[in-house]
């Protein structure tokens, strides 16, 4: 990998690049699915290639290729430089990069059981047991369970002298049980919705999920939802479980604190941000209960690594401190606009994409409450679990989320199951009503595997540490 990168950097330099970096990536993915006891699939995906990013005449160019012979690498490096020259025709100010220390080193995701060493029989046995347990609940229409494992070997080198080798290992799994009636489709998922929960970890993460042990429960819950009452409507107290709190953080804090959105780099696609730099240190984003960090060192998080994809070391950045907005996730280029240093949040989906500012692990720091205490001290409200629907505007202010499961709370007790819950609000007004966050014992790192951004589109996996939390005077309705 080192030879490949050095060759690409040499060609880039001789083609006029003032700066160049190169990422060589080899990736293996193994996916297993069992659905309805009669469909089973085992698949593997191997991928390798190289991406070369250059600055020529003060402008960016990037080219990627999946062939690693010297002719292909040379052509890709020259193409990147040609593209940069085309970019320079519409570039008023040359690209400036915030200084970053030259980095030489290696990083390996800590794993207890290498998921690629675990037999396929063991994995498939787990899925079959989970699928059968869901099937055993009368009335379930469809049910499926799946596992996915990723190993990504990356080598980064830059013309500044950085040389970094990293091996990232991910393990993910999940299951869904769906029940239908004449006018309802109700799905319950475990541990999280949208396919699976995933961590930078070994097979021990799968074992800790206990898929088979939770299968009957979620299938039973899906059936119960068919005949559950619609979620009550009104301005209510709202308690979110950790998974929904994680998505709330992702959409309403993670994305608006990406500094490229503030510059307008994503305006045509992902959108901009209501959090402008003049608000740093003086804008009340949330209540004093709310502290949110971007931490690429969180153990197990899908945004955990040694260095980002432009060679900046993993770090922890405070985004919101006791409710006060105080920082961004940034790159070397965006940080230079403000005289800052990069927060180390540049990530690329793979070798064929440029790095963009992406969430690392954006964490709602734990508080001092507990779920049971929150419920016990709520006069009338709802406790909502597991995302079903999510939508937010392009500045990240106006949101509406729906969840799979809900409980109405009256006088400190869960009184009935409710379905089709929706809640809506505006980001800062919502977070300012947060009066409780559960403590460290209920705080978990969740994996979001489907975060999209950029053109061409890049889907990246990010982490969110979160715990149950409570909000007041939230607009709650039921989908109908």
């Amino acid at each position: 990998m080192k030879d490949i990168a050095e060759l690409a950097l040499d060609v880039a330099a001789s083609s006029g690049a003032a700066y160049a970096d190169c990422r060589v990536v080899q990736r293996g993915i193994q996916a297993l699915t069992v659905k309805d006891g009669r469909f089973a699939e085992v698949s593997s995906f191997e991928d390798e290639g190289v991406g070369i990013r250059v600055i020529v005449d003060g402008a960016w160019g990037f080219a990627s290729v999946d062939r690693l012979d010297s002719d292909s690498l040379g052509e890709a490096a020259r193409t990147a430089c040609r593209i940069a020259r085309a970019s320079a025709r519409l570039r008023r100010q040359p690209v400036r990069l915030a200084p970053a220390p030259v980095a030489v080193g290696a990083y390996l995701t800590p794993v207890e059981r290498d998921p690629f060493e675990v037999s396929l029989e063991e994995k498939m046995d787990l899925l079959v047991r989970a699928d059968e347990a869901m099937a055993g609940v009368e009335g379930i229409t469809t049910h499926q369970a799946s596992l996915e494992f990723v190993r990504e070997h990356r080598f980064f080198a830059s013309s500044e002298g950085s040389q970094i080798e990293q091996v990232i290992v991910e393990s993910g799994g999940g299951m869904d049980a769906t029940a239908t009636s004449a006018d309802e489709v109700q799905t319950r998922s475990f541990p999280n919705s949208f396919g699976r929960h995933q961590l930078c970890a070994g097979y021990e993460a799968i074992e800790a999920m206990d898929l088979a042990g939770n299968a009957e429960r979620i299938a039973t819950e899906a059936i119960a939802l068919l005949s559950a009452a619609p979620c009550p409507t009104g301005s209510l107290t709202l308690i979110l479980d950790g998974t929904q709190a994680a998505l709330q953080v992702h959409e309403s804090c993670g994305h608006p604190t990406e500094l490229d959105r503030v510059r307008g780099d994503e305006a045509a696609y992902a959108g901009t941000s209501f959090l402008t730099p003049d608000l740093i240190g003086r804008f009340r984003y949330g209540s004093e209960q709310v502290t949110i960090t971007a931490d690429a060192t969180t153990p197990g998080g899908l945004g955990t690594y040694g260095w980002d994809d432009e060679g900046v070391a993993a770090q922890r950045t405070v985004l919101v401190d006791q409710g006060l907005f105080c920082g961004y996730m940034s790159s070397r280029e965006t940080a230079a606009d403000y005289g800052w240093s990069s927060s180390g949040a540049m990530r690329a989906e793979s070798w064929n994409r440029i790095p963009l500012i992406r969430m690392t692990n954006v964490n709602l720091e734990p508080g001092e409450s507990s779920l049971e205490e929150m419920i016990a001290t709520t006069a009338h409200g709802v406790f909502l679990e597991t995302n079903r629907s999510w939508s937010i505007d392009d500045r990240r202010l106006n949101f509406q989320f729906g969840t799979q499961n809900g409980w109405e709370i009256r006088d400190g007790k869960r009184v009935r199951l409710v379905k089709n819950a929706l809640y809506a609000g505006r980001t800062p007004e919502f977070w300012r009503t947060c009066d409780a966050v559960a403590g460290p014992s209920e705080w978990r790192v969740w994996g979001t595997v489907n975060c999209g951004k950029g053109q061409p589109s890049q889907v990246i996996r990010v982490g969110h540490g979160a715990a149950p939390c409570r909000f007041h005077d939230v607009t709650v309705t039921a989908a109908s």
Partner: protein
Amino acid sequence: MSLTPAVHLLALADSILERVGRDGAEVAVVEHEEGLTRFARNQIHQNVAERSRRFRLRLMGDEQVGVAEIRGDVEDLPGRLVAAAEAARQLAPPGEVTPLPRPDAGSDGPAAHSPATAACTPEWRADQVLTVAGLHVAAGLEAFGAVQTSVTHTAIANSLGVRRHAESTAAGLVCVARGQSGWGYADRHHRDIGGLDARSLAEETVETCRRNQGATTLEPGIYPVVLSPYAVADLVGHLADLGFSALAHQEHRSFMRPGEKLMSSLVSIADDASHPEAMPFPFDDEGVSTRGVSCIEEGVCRSFLHDSATALREGVPSTGHALPMPNTFGPWARHLVVSAGESSLDELIAGCGRGLYVTRFWYVRDVHPLRAVITGMTRDGTFLIEDGRVGRPVRDLRFTQSIVDALADVQGVGRERSIELDEGERAMLVPALSIRRFAFTS
């Protein structure tokens, strides 16, 4: 360097089938080249190119199926591909395995292809940005967007004799304009770069942005709307995903009730992979010829889209809408065509009385699948229609609305249609629509 001709990719697929040396094998080879130039604040800020080739092998036998896919020029690719697929197959528990399709009589055309797009350069893309940025600078506005060109060569072969190949291209230009207090939007998609017309696109974004300054708040509620084709594409794409697939029907999660009239007689929607304006492509990911399917005919629910698996369950032929098999997603609509009406856009607006004109939706998500309820925001130009004319801009609104109910309330359909591509590169040929009632919730 140009891509490998698709017919040569077919020879590569054949060589892997030979390596497998038995029945129950399917190989897909896809070579792809793409260039994309992004601009922000009237400058190019990201500019990329990608070239790759993927091999995918599906192996079946003994009621087991295994899949292996390799992207990249790895050492002994055929050997590694076959070994990985066979290892996966042997360890998969026995289950329902849909047989491979047999060859059909379909031809390997038409496919949306343009030599000019295939040969497009970064300099040409920069020229388009220069045109767009120049018009925005002259108007005192900032332009943001992307110019994208791609060429894809596809070959699919299986051990029952299916042998398909096709070459396709796509070009797109997307732009939003920013003024002091509002935005505008336009996009263009075509197989040929000559169909993008950067100047007309820039004129449209500038005009929309100029109108969309100083927006005021409007109370949420139910309003008549005229939706631009950009907004209609979002509705139709979600409608197809929620209900047009035979798998959704078989799993009792589709809103479709065949034979029942659920929508206005003005609404007809088909999936038509041979329509010359809908980025045509001749076959699906199993190499089955894609047939035209009428899903909604004058408001009446008609037929579903099938792949081999859903077709087998119902004892009908596949309609050629498979994604790479096997999968749990089911058949997918790739070429949605909404029938044109008879009204100009001005006539739709004039017929609306008092309502809203929506340029574009954003972040649309499902809320209640069986009732086809979705939510999302308006974006980049929402205007009050008063006295039958587009008037003052209003701030973006959230809607929560059943698509089926909205299409039941259609009172006018535009006669002009535009081609839209969604994130999955699904083509949608759509007109503007006038709808009596549309629910804005915040």
